[in-house]
């Protein structure tokens, strides 16, 4: 029970918000806007899953937003060259994995601090993209949006894909040795090494995986719109870190689960539509999200104080 205190409290908070909305603004629960909301968050969920993995390994990746933009533009260009979707998906994932591998090499190989490495790659990728594209949008072939299906079917497809990624990763983290290795490395890399694990390899692969997932997320994004914005993904890193932290993953590594992250992301995503339905100005969204992050971390702090060091 106490081991899952954080996950339970996030789910409880989410339930409270939803129940509150059910009374105050029943309009929130119309299926179509709700589906659209979830679809918009689908790419973020995929990236957040990867971010959770990296943070469990006691690293952080703030370059995901830039990776997202680079992969998005690449995918868009390939699509406009007429590549079929079946080849776009592996291409986007591969592009993301390569970008992730750059971070992984610098962090795991040279043992540089991940926050600075990914700060540097974030700036580098973002500016290189701007240099190359000069802010130009990429027009996508018309039949690409929603895979040429109806919007509703397309949305369901995207949401299902994102949920599948979440479930597979969550099960892997809990029930595969590789998943447990992430926790071990995050809890204490030196002890993990002494236990015969290879912390550097685990770290490297975590960065590759978050890159690959970011690549996959761009596909989920590209399929939703007629164009690719080269500025897409700005702020994605902080949004996903916020979801991960609210979801109860410890920034000190080795603790947390993807179910919590899922609930955390939903909680943060609810803020904006909830405000609209409650007729509060939408400009309060960020402030309220900030408060949620502070509350989550406060809960952690109070709990830590209670159980003692």
């Amino acid at each position, binding site marked *: 029970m106490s081991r899952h205190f954080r996950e339970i409290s996030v789910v409880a908070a989410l339930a409270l918000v939803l129940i509150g909305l059910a009374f105050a603004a029943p309009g929130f629960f119309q299926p179509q806007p709700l589906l659209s909301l979830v679809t918009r968050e689908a790419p973020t969920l995929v990236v957040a899953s990867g971010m959770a993995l990296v943070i469990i390994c006691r690293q952080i990746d703030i370059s995901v937003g830039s990776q997202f933009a680079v992969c998005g533009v690449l995918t868009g260009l390939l699509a406009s060259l007429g590549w079929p979707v079946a080849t776009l998906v592996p291409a986007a994932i591969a592009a993301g994995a390569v970008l992730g591998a750059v971070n992984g090499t610098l962090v795991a190989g040279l043992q540089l601090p991940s926050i600075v490495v990914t700060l540097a790659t974030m700036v580098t990728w973002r500016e290189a993209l701007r240099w190359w594209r000069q802010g130009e949008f990429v027009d996508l072939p018309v039949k690409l949006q929603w895979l040429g299906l109806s919007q509703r079917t397309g949305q369901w497809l995207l949401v299902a894909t994102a949920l599948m990624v979440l479930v597979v990763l969550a099960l892997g983290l809990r029930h595969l040795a590789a998943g447990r290795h992430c926790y071990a490395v995050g809890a204490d890399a030196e002890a993990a090494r002494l236990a015969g694990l290879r912390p550097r390899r685990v770290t490297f692969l975590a960065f590759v995986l978050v890159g690959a997932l970011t690549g996959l997320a761009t596909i989920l994004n590209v399929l939703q719109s007629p164009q690719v914005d080269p500025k897409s993904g700005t702020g994605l890193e902080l949004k996903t870190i916020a979801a991960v932290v609210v979801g109860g993953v410890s920034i000190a590594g080795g603790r947390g689960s993807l179910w919590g992250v899922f609930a955390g992301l939903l909680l943060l995503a609810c803020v904006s539509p909830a405000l609209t339905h409650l007729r509060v100005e939408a400009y309060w969204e960020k402030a309220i999200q900030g408060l949620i992050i*502070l509350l989550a971390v406060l809960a952690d702090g109070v709990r830590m104080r209670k159980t003692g060091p």
Partner: protein
Amino acid sequence: MSQTPSQSGSSKGALRHEWVLLMVVALEWLYFNSVGPRFGTLENSFDILRHSVEIGLLALVMTPIIISGGIDLSLGSLLGLCAVVFGKLWRDGGFSPAAAATCTLALGAVAGGLNASLITWLRLPPLIVTLGTYSLFRGLAEAITHGADTFTNFPDAFLALGQERFLGVPTQAHLFILVAGVMWLLLHRTTLGRTVRAIGFSPEGARHAGLPVGRRLASVYVLAGLIAALAAIIYTARLGQARADAGTGYELFAITAVVLGGTSIFGGIGTLHGTLLGIAAIAILNNGLVHARLPREAAGVLTGALLLLALSGTVIPQLWNARRARRRRHPAPASPSSPP
């Protein structure tokens, strides 16, 4: 050994780093001077100065924070909030610019105090606390302006702070030099700096030595908030307008400058002159590329690359230290003792 007592445990490595960085800055200057005819003019130098003061101020106050082992992601957002509050007070509140500025500075200190109290009293991780306030401060700025309101038409006397010269140099340069000087003294010549360094190396060690850990740590974050407010006022004066998106991303530029300047993200190691050189390297690059008729974006790419290079160069000895520190849990590698 040496005549001048060392500042920190690893000052030798840090010193070497700063010389290398100085050479990078000098090379940048020489190169851009040779390719851009207007680059070396006094007017352009002032231009560089004007454009780097705000991020520079944030970098100055970010330095002791990172040396203490912390980080402050909220400074860019706080700059935005302060700029908006300043504009609001002046336009809608009927305050004079001076009175509005005073209130804004107070707000900055209070906002820094919010970070400080969460980090020191409740011992929450700075990265997450300031991630929360990053969102909170920006959100408040947007809420105040309803996302779109822009404050303009400030009086000329106020705009002079950001656009005119005083004693031959841009007005804000005086403030920057003053802040830089005070920060240098604080960090390198007072017990505050010494304590912050000790905290960066080992917070528990510092506590066991009877150092006022919480108070010193808090003062560093409050100071950062105060200076972020000052940067907001200068920003508003330079651009002649205050908007909710002011200073977006500035925290990351500031951190880049600090780390480029040789400050260790692990805490403990770092100097203020290193940060100044880091600011200079980035500012000159940004400005020089325009004069060299190269795309501006190249500056970002080069800054990123420079940061990675600087890291690879400095992190190796630090890594060694960090590893030793990690080995504390396990028996230390033995070194032969001198014969009895």
